Each structure stands twice: as structure tokens, then as C-alpha cells.
């Protein structure tokens, strides 16, 4: 198990190298560079040349990339070419906001989704199930920013309960959490429902009932215990996605999170910033997925056995 975990963490290195290369390459290929966002009307071409030199734009991309990677491998994410501030600090100063928003949305989403999914699975094929499916369809097809804007108009404008902007109190949490949580809950509900329906077909439920397990215990210990795996996968993925920050929700609610950082970095062609943000996000994804896989091992002994490959028991007749 430890070996497995270490193995996965070691995979971070090639992943990050790939990711940084791709982002770096894409931004370099995009027309325009960071200089273009800084030049003003009165500048002459000489000024622009000087700026180019200052930011290393006169050297080939490989040189800049090499320099960046060299720093990266020393654990230095570098500084933003725009602000001059260290990227890690900039990211970390905004990350708690994204974290709070994400975790709250996740909690809300899961609290809605799992009971709803169980409910839909229980009444599968009936009108309740169809209503739930309609609800999840709504959640899946509504773009988050649209719902975000709608909530803004209803609750900040028509009925003034919540503030339209970020003011640091608990009130400004409500709308973005609902907007975010609603779309998350849609996917998780569907996943829960199908996972439970899948397990409901299994024979071991019949065995359990045949030995006299009451229905509630069947649901708890036999159905849910086996249905967790696909549900956990989904929740894990959603956690990773939401922790990466949602640029759209943050724009709508002026939330000072990390999602917008990446968008901003790209429009300013701030390559180090963009790379840095993506690298941090990728690391987050990898770690979260690792945690999800470890949870699998806790929940499902068959997977646990796969991980501890050195200790496989021989099956005896």
C-alpha cells in the first residue's frame, strides 16, 4: 500500500513536466506575447524592443522553457511576469477562497445528491424517478454561469437578500454555493442512482434476504456498501474539478479565487503564471485522485488486494 502510494506520487513528475510543456508551448504559439499587453499608444518600436529584451522574448522559446524548467525542478515556481510576485504566494493567497467555496458546494451537492439518488433508485421506473431524472437533466444542462446570473438577479436584485458582490461575510457564500452545488449534485445523483440500480441486480442481495436480513440493513450493509465505488469516483472527480476553481462562477460573483487567475494569465500571455497555475492545479488533481484511489482500497477489499501485489494469496481449492 505504501509502495503504491509512493508510486503514484512519483508519477507526478512526468505529469507535471508534460503539462508544463504543453501550456508553455500553447501560449508561445498563441499570437501575441506579454509585451503586447503592456505597450501603450506612445511607445515606439525601440521601446518595444527593449521591453522584449527585458522579458526574454528575444530569445527562442526553448531557452525560456529551459530556464523555467530548471527553476521548476528546483522547486521554484517562479514569479509572475506581470506582477513580479512569486506565483506560489499569489496562488496561495487566493486559494483559501476557492477552497471554501468548493468545499461548501461539494457538501451541499453531496447532501442533496446521495439521498436523491437513493430515492430515485428505490422508486425506479415510477413518476418519482422521472421527476428526479428531469431535475438532474436540468442541473446538467444549465450552464453554471447562467444559473449564477439568474440567482444574482433573483436574490440580489429582485428580492434583496444577498449581496451582489463579494463582501467577506457568510451572505455572499449562499448564491455561488447554490449555483455550483446544483450542477454538481446533478452528476452525483445520476451516478448514485445508476450505481444503486446496478447493485440491486446482484445475487448476493438475494442471499442476504434469504438469510433473513431486514430490508433496511440490506440497503445499508449490502447495497450501499457496494455502491460506494462509482459514487466515490464521481465525487472525487468533482472535488478535483471544483478545487481547481471555476473561472466562470468567480467572474459572476467577483469571487477572489484561483479560477480567474488562469484566465487572466492567459489573456495577458503571462506564461510563468499560466504554467504555475496549471501545475498547481494538476498537482491538486493528482493528489485528490490518489486519495480517491486509496479510499477505494479502504472500501473494496478486491482493490486493496490489487494494490498490495506482493502479498497476493493463492486461491485454494
Amino acid at each position, binding site marked *: 500500500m505504501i509502495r503504491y502510494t509512493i508510486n503514484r506520487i512519483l508519477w507526478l513528475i512526468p505529469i507535471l513536466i508534460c503539462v508544463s510543456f504543453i501550456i508553455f508551448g500553447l501560449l508561445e504559439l498563441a499570437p*501575441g506575447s506579454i509585451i*503586447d499587453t*503592456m505597450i501603450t*499608444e*506612445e511607445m515606439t518600436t525601440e*521601446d518595444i524592443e527593449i521591453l522584449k529584451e527585458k522579458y526574454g522574448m528575444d530569445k527562442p522559446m526553448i531557452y525560456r522553457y529551459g530556464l523555467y524548467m530548471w527553476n521548476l525542478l528546483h522547486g521554484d515556481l517562479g514569479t509572475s511576469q506581470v506582477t513580479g510576485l512569486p506565483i506560489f504566494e499569489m496562488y496561495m493567497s487566493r486559494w483559501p477562497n476557492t477552497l471554501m467555496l468548493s468545499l461548501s458546494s461539494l457538501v451541499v451537492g453531496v447532501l442533496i445528491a446521495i439521498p436523491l439518488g437513493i430515492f430515485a433508485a428505490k422508486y425506479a421506473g415510477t413518476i418519482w424517478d422521472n421527476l428526479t431524472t428531469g431535475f438532474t437533466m436540468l442541473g446538467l444542462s444549465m450552464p453554471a454561469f447562467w444559473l449564477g446570473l439568474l440567482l444574482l438577479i433573483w436574490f440580489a436584485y429582485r428580492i434583496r437578500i444577498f*449581496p451582489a458582490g463579494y463582501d467577506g461575510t457568510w451572505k455572499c457564500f449562499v448564491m455561488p454555493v447554490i449555483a455550483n452545488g446544483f450542477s454538481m449534485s446533478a452528476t452525483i445523483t445520476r451516478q448514485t442512482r445508476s450505481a444503486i440500480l446496478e447493485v440491486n441486480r446482484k445475487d448476493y442481495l438475494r442471499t442476504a434476504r434469504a438469510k433473513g436480513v431486514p430490508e433496511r440493513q440490506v440497503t445499508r450493509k449490502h447495497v450501499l456498501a457496494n455502491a460506494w465505488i462509482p459514487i466515490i469516483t464521481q465525487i472525487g472527480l468533482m472535488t478535483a474539478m471544483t478545487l481547481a476553481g471555476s473561472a466562470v462562477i468567480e467572474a459572476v460573483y467577483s469571487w*477572489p479565487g484561483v479560477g480567474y487567475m488562469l484566465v487572466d494569465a492567459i489573456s495577458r500571455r503571462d506564461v510563468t503564471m499560466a504554467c504555475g497555475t496549471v501545475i498547481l492545479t494538476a498537482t491538486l488533481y493528482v493528489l485528490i485522485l490518489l486519495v480517491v484511489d486509496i479510499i477505494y482500497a479502504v472500501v473494496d477489499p478486491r482493490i486493496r488486494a490489487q494494490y498490495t501485489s506482493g502479498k497476493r494469496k493463492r486461491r485454494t481449492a
Partner: protein
Amino acid sequence: MKKAKIALCIIFCVVLVMSALVGCGKAEPEDTTQTATPPPASSTPTASPPPAPTQPPPPPEDVKYKEDIVVTLGDKVAVIDIFNPAFQSSQAALVTNMIYDNLVYCTMDTTYEPELATSWETDDYKTFTFKLRDDVKFHNGEPFTADDVAFTIDKARESVGTMINDKFSQIEKYEIVNDYEIILTLKQANVDFIYDISYPTYPIVNREAYENDPDKGAWVGTGPWIVTDFSSNDYIKFVRNDNYFKELPKAKTFTMKYVAEETARMIMFENDELDFTGVSSDKVDIYRNDDRFILNSYVMNNTNFVAFNMNDPLLSDINFRLACAHAFNNQECVDITLNGYGVAAPTYWGYRTQYKNTDLQPYTYDLELAKEYLAKTSYNGEPIEVICAMPHTIKNAQVFQSQMALIGINIEIFETDGATLSANTMWGNTDAQIVVNSGAWSGLANSIRNYVYPNNNANKANYSNPEVSALLDQASVETDEAKREQLYKQVQAIVHEELPYLPIFNMELFIGGQAGTGGILFFANNNHDYSLAYRIID
């Protein structure tokens, strides 16, 4: 039952397809027909442009003022540091007006008042002697002295690639006579030097602050507000500098923040979460007659233009440009893009820029004449690419496209973002054939240099005329004002005839405030001074 289900399915599919098609319709520009549609009934276009903003009346005494003022910025502010090229943006002056001061203060009417300097003298516009105030302290407690002026000049000269570097590089040397007197000598005479050093984004900063505090030293100035908190790209928080040597603001704390989403911003404004915010022309009518709000407006100096790439074989033919000029109806641009809130520009010159040549005749709208000129060119119906980046320039491009189509010119619009536009329209390296953009103009006539002098980034037309360049060089050292005026008017005439640029309009901009607000100094070049903004609450 089965048939009913099939029927229902078909109906749903039809509804879906129809609703998808409805969405398609909105993408096209609103008006592509020949007949100039009258502007929408609800708007009252400014028949005569609004008067120039005047100095606002002094705020009344004996009333209660709101202690905290909140305004929104038009764009993100990433850093606060006058020497960092990343600071250069449309919002920079708003921030510097709050925190710093210059030696000389340039008023809204382009007259000069003492600020950090008590007086200045020059005989030849080459050597300037400044006497400085002796009672000013920076926000960190350090006294303001000639040494800080020297530091600012030195640091500016180091910061290559920035505007402040350009402006201060013209200073060949300085001599510190004593703590409160300094003599600057320029490399060559420049009649507009006082304007340059009075520009709000080239203020005086403190040596000790920069040297001792690398993180926040750049935020230290002598101005009426002190930065307490700055979150890059989000907000800046200020607290009043109670030791300020000029007029003290009525408010005690100030917040400038950036709200990305316009809907959210307008809701915040209506909910009274903001005291001031910019209002776009399509929203003006909502607030115009609402007593809860005050709408401040002014016409911007900046002129939107259509630039023809003079290096392009087709466009360098004057007949083509004349054809476009006669087919272009810029009032229609005002009506469509700005809802009527703007002035169709007769000339390319800045709206309130000095020495405007009002004798020049704008090109008449005459489609037949335009077609005649077009026939003289080698144009064969091939598509011509127009590049643009900002929302209103994109709309202008679309109007231009529809109008040129009337005489048979096929325009293709390439919409992109700021950085790409910049990269594609570098002097001498322009791929684009036509650029629709906005040109910044100060109150000074020498702004024209940006657009007609070779090697300038703003010269999107790749225009280069040695005669014009010579005239401009002459004007920058001409000390006699009447003669200077003549020179600039001559330049305007030549450029008008050669038509590298088609003027479009000057936008009327609106800053909305809650009832009881006031105190903003509006500058036609958008470098507003918010430092004395107040709000009366009763």
C-alpha cells in the same frame, strides 16, 4: 398510446430545433440595411455635445458625509508600481491620482498649478528650475526633498521599456541645489515638458520606501490616500492621509475594486453596494430619470478610427481610401454602437485637444462618388481583412462592413483579443490591412505624433511622411505659441488629405453615482481624479 408518444416526440424535436434557430438570429449586427434607421425611440441622442466638464462646485459644509466610498475600476490592476510596465493601463492614472503627487498639477483645462513644486522657471524650455515645498511628508513619514525627485528620475531612466522611461529620458542631467530646489536640463528643448512631468502616472516617489521595502515601497506617495490593502486584480483599499498638504477628502476610507461581470456590477450599483461605477451607453436610459442616481457624463478625447495600412498595395492607393471615406457614415456608428451617446468625429484630432483645425471639410457621404473612386482602383471584389479587439470597435467594424458592402467592398472581420491585435499590428510589421481601434489623445497637440510619426506603436496605418515629421519636430521646439498652432494645423491639413485614418467618433462616457455623490474631477483623457469624491448622507 404508441402513436401519441411518437407524436409527442416529433413535437418536442420541432420545438427544440426552432428554439435553436431563434438563438442564431441574434448574432448578426442589428442594422445591415441601407436606409439609415432612426435611433431607437427611447434614447435621446446628444444633438449638441455636452459641455466640457467644469470644475465641480466645492462640497457643502454642514452635512454628513459617508465615510467609506466604493468605486469600480474599468479594468484589472495587477500591480501598483509606476516603474513596472505591467502597471501601464487605462486605470493607472485613477490609482496614481489617489496615492501620489507630481511637481506640477495639470488641471482639466490644461492649465498648470503648483503641487509639489511651488514654482518653476525656464528661459529656453531646456533648463527648468523648480522650487519645492518644504512641508510635505510621504506616507511613511519621510520628508519630501529634491533627493526624491532625483531618485524618481534615476529610477525612471533605469526602467527601460516603460513610458516613464521615455518621458524622463529626455532629462539629460539634474542638479540638486538644496533640499528644496532642483534644476533639470533636457537633452533638447521641449515646450511641452511641463505637461509631461505633470502627467499623473509619472509622479514623485520616495527613495527610502523603495530601498527599504521592496514589497510595498512602491505604494508610498505624498497623495491624499494611503494604500492599506492591495489584492492584485481584485481591489485596492485606501485610508485617508490626514497630513495631506492640499485639500483633505471628505471620506475616510476608499475602496477601488474590479467586478468582472457587468450584470453583477449593475446590480451592486442598484443595491447601493457601490457609490460610483461606469455605466455603458446601452444602460444609460435606465438610470437617466431615476432620482436615486446621478449620471455624470463627458465626451472622451479619444477618437475611434479606421486605419488603412499604407504599406498594403491596394490600400496605399488614395482612390480606395477616398472611396471608403465617401461611403462611410460615422453618425450611424454613433447611433448603433453607442445608442446615440457620442459625437461623430469630423476629424481625427482629439475632441478637446488644443489647436484643432476646424477649417477642414469632412468627407461628404456620397455613394456615387465613392463608387467612382473605387472604379479607379485595382479592387476586384477580393475580401479585405479588418482586425479589431474591443467590443465597441467590433461593432464599429461591423457597421463599416455593412456600409462598404453598399459600394461593393467585401470586408472580413477578424475579432481577437488585445494582445493578438497588438502583435499583428506592429509598426512595419503589420499583417492586417485595416485596423479599427481607439486612439488615445491628451489635451496636447503633440499627441498626433503617436499616429503619424514613423516607428510608433500607435501608428496603425504605417503612415510615414517626411514633411509631416519635419513639421512635428519643428513644432516640438517652437516656443512661439501662435507659430506652433500654425504648424499643427498644417499637419492636420496634410494628414486629412492623405487620409491614412478615417475618424469614427468620440464616445460619451458615463459615470453613475448614487444620489448625493460628487467630487470627481473628470478629465477628457479618462485620467479621472477620484481623490475628492464624496457622498452626502442625511
